[in-house]
């Protein structure tokens, strides 16, 4: 994480409190990942969207830990969490609350929203597109305006983030408008073959992160969101325009709404990286707003030169995934190396040494010695020393 700043935000740097909040969110996401395999990007994008206030659609086959990842992050952030699996016959009261029968006898329609979507800080709606027209229309109001209206009930919703999940994107054009409200998209695949053993082990141990200790991080999220709304886009606005033009020329069609609201993701990325102003380092969020998996790949390839410097001190894996740039890669590897070194004791077990070797392999396969960024050079040197100090005796 960056060094602490002391100058006020209007001089272009973030106050110490916001940096501490970003670090708290980063730690929450790390705790949420305990026991999850290959869901680093998803958990980080949940945090990004929670800060930006933009909603997230997760697309992936059943059984790929979509709901588990979101639930874990929500638990670590604290606040009111609502989760539901929608079906074709789901009634609105199952999401928004039952009608107050007492008041109904008095001729007033009021809804008991306690514990339901209108009072949630984070909501996860599985199979979101299976909802009825009544449900989706009501959700539109909540997603857009953060207001729930039914009869005499008018609730200002504290909803910070709604995560919708689906096995695949809907074919029905009538759902396009609703789908467009989910600005960020993450496409999840089953765990890769190379990490199956890791999945089997973590699944068998059924490791869960420790419950949230201390206070909810919702106030921290709010401070970060406020800081993001005040983020200075001066340096990046022309780059955003260039990026959108390139994307459109390449066939990645983004609605005007998505283009404008993508700035909120850029701002959130900047704040989580310790800055009160957005730069080219934050453009890695742009592929996130491309609507399909193919267009996200195309977006990344189209913007490859603009994303070369992308990185984020809090969202290491997401920045690398959506930029595939050397800066983000270096930052992620340096952080991974530092965490390994911090967890190393005097007699490390063979698994710890294997993890060190795996990180060194990634570093050496990704960078030439001459192009190794300075921060990563130091970490690599320390990892090499640790590996050689605890090397297994050669077989004779």
């Amino acid at each position: 994480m960056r060094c602490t700043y002391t100058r006020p935000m209007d001089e272009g740097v973030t106050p110490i409190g916001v940096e501490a909040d970003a670090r708290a969110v980063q730690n929450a996401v790390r705790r949420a990942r305990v026991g999850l395999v290959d869901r680093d990007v998803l958990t980080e994008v949940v945090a990004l969207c929670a800060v930006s206030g933009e909603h997230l659609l997760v697309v992936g086959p059943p059984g790929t830990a979509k709901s588990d990842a979101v639930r874990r992050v929500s638990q670590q952030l604290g606040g009111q969490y609502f989760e539901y699996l929608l079906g074709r016959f789901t009634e609105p009261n199952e999401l928004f609350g039952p009608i107050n029968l007492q008041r109904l006898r008095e001729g007033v329609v009021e809804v008991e929203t306690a514990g339901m979507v209108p009072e949630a800080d984070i909501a996860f709606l599985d199979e979101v597109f299976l909802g009825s027209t009544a449900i989706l229309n009501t959700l539109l109001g909540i997603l857009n305006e953060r207001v729930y209206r039914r009869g005499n009930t008018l609730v200002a919703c504290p909803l910070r983030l709604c995560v919708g999940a689906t096995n695949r994107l809907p074919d029905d054009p009538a759902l396009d408008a609703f789908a467009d409200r989910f600005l960020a998209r993450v496409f999840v695949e089953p765990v890769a073959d190379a990490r199956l053993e890791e999945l089997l082990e973590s699944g068998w141990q059924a490791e869960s992160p420790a419950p949230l200790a201390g206070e909810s991080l919702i106030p921290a999220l709010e401070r970060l969101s406020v800081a993001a709304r005040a983020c200075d886009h001066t340096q990046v606005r022309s780059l955003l325009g260039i990026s959108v033009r390139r994307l459109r020329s390449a066939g990645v069609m983004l609605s005007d709404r998505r283009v404008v609201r993508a700035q909120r993701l850029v701002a959130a990325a900047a704040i989580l990286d310790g800055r009160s102003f957005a730069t080219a380092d934050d453009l890695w969020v742009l592929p996130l707003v491309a609507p399909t998996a193919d267009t996200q790949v195309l977006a990344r390839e189209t913007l490859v030169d603009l994303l070369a410097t992308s990185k984020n001190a809090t969202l290491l894996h997401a920045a690398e995934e959506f930029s595939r740039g050397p800066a983000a890669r270096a930052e992620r590897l340096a952080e991974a190396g530092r965490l390994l070194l911090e967890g190393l004791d005097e007699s490390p077990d063979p698994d710890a040494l294997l993890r060190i070797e795996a990180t060194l392999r990634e570093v050496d396969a990704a960078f030439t010695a001459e192009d190794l960024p300075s921060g990563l050079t130091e970490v690599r040197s320390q990892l090499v020393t640790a590996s050689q100090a605890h090397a297994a005796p050669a077989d004779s």
Partner: protein
Amino acid sequence: MSAEPLGLDWHVREPPLSPCGVVARGDVVPSLAAAAARYVSAGTDLKVCHGDGWLVVLGDSNCLPWVDGVVYVGLEDGLHLPTTLRCSPPPGVVRRAVRPEPGPIREVIVLIGHDVLVGPAPARVADLQMLVELQ
């Protein structure tokens, strides 16, 4: 065996190739052989090709051994190149210079610097005894 050195120019490749092999030359060969032997003993599926003063270990990207001083290689146009570098002339041109015969390549051909390392494509998992002899 090796082929005649080539006048290749190398440029940084971004993003890097996914590694499918690791190469050691000279003094690093014994260390890589020892590391590969450890991995094979533990059940990792690695294949090996070697020549005079060089050793190539092939396998899944997440299962390749690491020692200081090795070079990771990936596949492009049938040739193994350093994952972090792009060569000029392009691999397809170099391949025709090294193996002008048409048809699939049945050897491991590695380009490193100006050197071309050529060896038979291994058919089976690495032999532990052979790796011990290389240490």
